[in-house]
């Protein structure tokens, strides 16, 4: 199964039954798979007129009680940006996969990239936080889609799967466990008296329970600054409360959200920090460097946002250099430089043009980092 199909299977396994989307290379296979499979489980797939309509329909479906997903790539991702902000502001749990291709604009539609890593973090206006996960294989496309749905429900936030053309079109064996072995977080439905329902609670740690539109609860939701009933409350104080909550509900739980994978970091002189397909390319360079006697470790970011700040700070104190290969002109490396704060060298190995790295480039950077 390829990564794109595994995204659709992960969504179905997580209980997603609504998918409004607009096809775009290299993500189309996910929409096709979902469209093909969803009648079997009573789901609904709508091919919309464009990406703006797609993402907006998804927001609506969430408030109608559904678990929703859409997939897209660069140009569609840009079109969806405004509504991502709306979804964050309305605290709408949803999953979006960006099967990244080379940009800017329509760029190279069939070739791979990791160029939207900062866009997903900052692309909509205003202050907010999202969660972004990066799979390195079709199996992880399946596994992380389920995790994305779970995180979305827990924190009532859009969760992004930032995969890429290579993993999306890579075929490997994917093991889909029996349904009873899969951990699924269901929506936190409100159970109390109707008159007491409040769609928001700006406590900065947890998200308020939700209700389904049409079930007789009186509430409101809007992109405007709002109070706990969801009605516009256009004051600086209220905005401060809302924005602090949107950020803190993610930041204060960052340790619970962040997942990384480590190999050989203890005693390493150089650590390669990477994610997604780049981390699999880096493995070859690391093997070669180890054969050459260099003490090199690997830190793979499975969760890129929120960022594993503490881990990078600690790492920077103990290594000579951190090497960061990415399929972009240097994006997540900026965050690593910020956290390393000059305590070790940070070497960016960037790659543009739609091809994955030659492992030799990463090896050269590892050697450069080790020799200082």
């Amino acid at each position, binding site marked *: 199964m390829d990564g794109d199909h595994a995204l659709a299977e992960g969504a179905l396994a997580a209980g997603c039954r609504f998918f409004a989307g607009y096809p775009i*290379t290299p993500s189309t296979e996910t929409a096709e798979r979902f469209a093909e499979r969803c009648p079997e489980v009573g789901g609904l797939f709508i091919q919309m007129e464009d990406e703006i309509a797609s993402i907006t329909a998804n927001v609506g479906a969430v408030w109608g009680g559904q678990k929703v997903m859409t997939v897209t790539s660069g140009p569609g991702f840009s079109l969806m940006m405004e509504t991502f902000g709306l979804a964050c502001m309305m605290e709408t749990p949803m999953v979006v996969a960006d099967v990244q291709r080379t940009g800017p604009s329509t760029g190279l*539609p*069939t*070739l791979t990239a990791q160029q939207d890593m900062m866009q997903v973090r900052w692309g909509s206006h205003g202050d907010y936080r999202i969660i972004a996960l990066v799979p390195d294989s079709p199996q992880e496309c399946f596994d992380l889609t389920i995790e994305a749905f779970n995180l979305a429900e827990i924190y009532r936030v859009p969760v992004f799967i930032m995969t890429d053309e*290579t993993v999306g*079109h*890579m*075929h*490997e*064996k994917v093991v889909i466990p029996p349904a009873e072995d899969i951990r699924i977080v269901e929506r936190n439905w409100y159970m109390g008296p109707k008159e007491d329902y409040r769609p928001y609670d700006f406590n900065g740690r947890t998200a308020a329970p939700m209700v389904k539109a049409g079930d007789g609860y009186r509430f409101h939701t809007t992109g405007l600054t709002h109070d706990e009933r969801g009605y516009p409350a256009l004051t600086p104080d209220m905005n401060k409360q809302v924005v602090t909550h949107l950020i803190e509900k993610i930041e204060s739980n960052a340790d619970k959200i962040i997942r990384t994978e480590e190999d050989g970091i203890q005693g390493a002189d150089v650590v390669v920090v990477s994610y997604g*397909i780049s981390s*699999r*390319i880096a*493995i*070859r360079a690391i093997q070669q460097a180890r054969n050459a006697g260099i003490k090199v470790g690997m830190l793979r970011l499975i969760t890129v946002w929120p960022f594993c700040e503490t881990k990078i700070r600690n790492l920077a104190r103990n290594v000579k250099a951190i090497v960061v290969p990415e399929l972009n002109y240097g994006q997540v490396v900026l965050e690593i430089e910020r956290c390393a704060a000059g305590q070790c060298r940070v070497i960016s190995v960037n790659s543009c043009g739609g091809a*994955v790295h030659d*492992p030799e480039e990463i090896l050269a950077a590892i050697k450069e980092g080790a020799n200082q």
Partner: protein
Amino acid sequence: MWEIKFSGFGGQGIVRCALITGAAVALHDDKFATMTQSFGPEARGGACQSQLIISDSRVLYPYCTTPGVLIALSQEAYDTYEPGLAVGGILIIEADLVKPKGDSERVELYSIPATRFAEELGNRLFANLVVLGFFTAITGAVSPEAMKKALPGLVPDRFLSANIKALDKGYQHGVEAVSRKTGAVH
């Protein structure tokens, strides 16, 4: 570990070849396989290649470093990828579409008129399965039983038996080609 590159032009079933082989080893031969592909924006006619790694343990690096097997079904694919084939590697070409040149001692060359064989079986679209059967016999990278088990769902149901025939035809031709070659050596 096998590093295999399938190449040709879009519409020949290049990606399908790698997909069937990968599914066969991963699901029916109890090995690990990773397939990657690259193609242009055209639906048909553009250059197309896919890479398949077969291993007894999990595949980490997902690409061919130096392919040990190259299947070239177009002249362009042959010209582009033949120089990258490992010394002593296996080169499989479509006899009527590719004219080999250069150092014939460097690699083991196997040639099959797959399109003609497929036409004899009723449809030139089966040419990729003829090539796969040929490949299976020559390399032994995958068992013929696993290949047959992998076909349902990866080829249209109504053409399943025709595709199996095409696979058999290529396999038979491959067995003969190998015995000829071994005979020549002894």
